[in-house]
């Protein structure tokens, strides 16, 4: 199918969830046209709550609804959700409230709006919370399955979605399995572990590097950041000896941080964390931003060629 933003896939999945599960309710904070919760709003107006530009209130209200048996999906940009971390920490995570937080507009990939609207630290923050599952689907079908999974997951879930369109990925088996990464491409010269909007480019980069005789690299898609698939990550170390992580997120504390933690404790190997290198995001087209931050195919090739021995 044609490229599709995971936020758009989410909008579809949400309607399906609304049809299938009467307890699902949805909230938005004046961004429903952007988060794509508007489809659900039109179809199920009684179960959609426009909370206005009051994200803290939206999060707390969702916790209250969850404590009363509802399954709330609450939507905003990733950066605006984590902006209200205290409420996520206390009212959602600590209450173990069955709230599904949906953070769209992740990474520099959102483009022109620039840093203030770009979710760049959200994985690091959500990962730090007990009870909080952290999921970032890499394409359309993964998003559909992740939403279906999230409805039935017992406890809070954070779902991270792109603004920009992404390509389909060649899933070897089930498109989405909670807590499990997938090997999209085999290789034993090293592994590129990627997540979200960077997975497709990591795969394309590995294909090209192999074609050019510069190494045959395994490519892994991590769609559940927490709980992370430690077994697969350790296997990448023991089987391929060196690991490069790629994410549209700061390199401190996100996927790279999680992988570094697993490897250094259990299976140390050469590791490089690639992503937004402890700088702020900026304005540009999504393509220009990915190019500048070396998250596109050419950028990843350059980083990989430089790192892998």
């Amino acid at each position, binding site marked *: 199918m044609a490229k599709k933003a995971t936020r758009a896939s989410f909008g579809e999945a949400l309607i399906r969830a609304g049809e299938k599960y009467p307890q699902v309710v949805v909230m938005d904070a004046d961004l429903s046209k952007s988060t794509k919760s508007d489809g659900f709003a039109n179809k199920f107006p009684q179960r959609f709550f426009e909370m*206005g530009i009051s994200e803290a209130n939206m999060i707390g209200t969702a916790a209250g609804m969850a404590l009363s048996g509802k399954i709330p999906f609450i939507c905003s940009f990733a950066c605006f959700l984590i902006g209200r971390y205290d409420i996520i920490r206390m009212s959602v995570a600590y209450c*173990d409230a069955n709230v599904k937080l949906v953070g769209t507009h992740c990474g520099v990939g959102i483009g022109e709006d620039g840093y203030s609207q770009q979710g760049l630290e959200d994985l690091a923050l959500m990962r730090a919370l007990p009870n909080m599952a952290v999921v970032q689907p890499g394409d359309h079908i993964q998003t559909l399955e992740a939403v279906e999974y999230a409805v039935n997951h017992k406890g809070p879930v954070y779902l991270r979605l792109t603004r920009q369109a992404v390509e389909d990925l060649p899933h070897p088996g089930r498109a989405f399995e909670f807590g499990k990464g997938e090997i999209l491409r085999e290789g034993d010269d090293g592994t590129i572990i990627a997540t979200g909007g960077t997975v497709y480019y990591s795969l394309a980069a590995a294909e090209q590097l192999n074609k050019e005789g510069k190494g045959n690299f395994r490519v892994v898609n991590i769609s559940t950041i927490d709980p992370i698939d430690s077994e697969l990550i350790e296997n990448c170390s023991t089987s391929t000896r060196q690991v490069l992580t790629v994410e549209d997120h700061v390199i401190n504390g996100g996927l790279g941080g999680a992988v570094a933690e697993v490897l250094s404790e259990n299976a140390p190997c050469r590791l490089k964390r690639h992503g937004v290198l402890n700088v702020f995001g900026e304005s540009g087209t999504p393509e220009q931003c990915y190019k500048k931050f070396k998250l596109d195919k050419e950028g990843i090739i350059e980083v990989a060629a430089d790192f892998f021995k």
Partner: protein
Amino acid sequence: MEETTVSFEQLGSIANKLRQDIVRMLHKSGSGHPGGSLSAIDIITYLYYQQLKRTRENSLAIDRHRFVLSKGHGVPALYAVLAEMGLIEKSALDTLREIDSPLQGHPDVVRIPYVEASTGSLGQGLSIAQGMAMAAKLDNFATKVFCLVGDGEIQEGQIWEAILSAAKFKLGNLIIFLDYNKGQIDGYVKDVMPIEPINEKLLAFNWDVHSIDGHDFQQIHEATEKAIANVDSPSFIIAHTIKGKGVSFMEDKASWHGKAPNDEELEKALIELRERG
């Protein structure tokens, strides 16, 4: 006006007994919040005995009336009521704040579901109560959701977000009590960050407002019944209270916000409370 199930005199007697439990449990734990627990106990006692009418059987029913202690540091008052109603063991009160005790320093809904929500970071409980009220409305339950906020607490921005939205959603089943004991930690509310005029503010936000003596059961009852009768808008009951109410040397003192009584202070407090009977 409907008679209360338990008479106002009986409520007073129960609340007095619970004040003794409060100071005893705080003395035992060596830390905690007497001032705000003693100012709140009359309201909480009334709500549990007259409105929530908790029993073991109904305490987790999906359509139950709910109470959210948004000012979570007042939890000794809540624990005292729950123990008196048999929902937690009386002996558990002695374990407040001890390691491995379900009686955490602030309400913990995972450890004790009867507290309805984990609170303690001020400003959040009102939104949670609102969500409960909205869920109940969606399900057409006759549920009423009560919530107690502190006067210092309404300095938090999220409180006003919830006050905005509760009016939008016409939550007639949401009733907020303000424990207006005039003091916070760094001093009197009027000096730290003034909040007056509260009545006019809430009216401007399209809430129904009542103003009462938060230690007078008749007034608490009348205001609550009026609030319940209003099905079109949420209600805000400004309850004028005294921080540390019931223990003369604690009354109206910011210093007794978060300090546990020592042996001598406990003794004095219990003598006063027992005399009141």
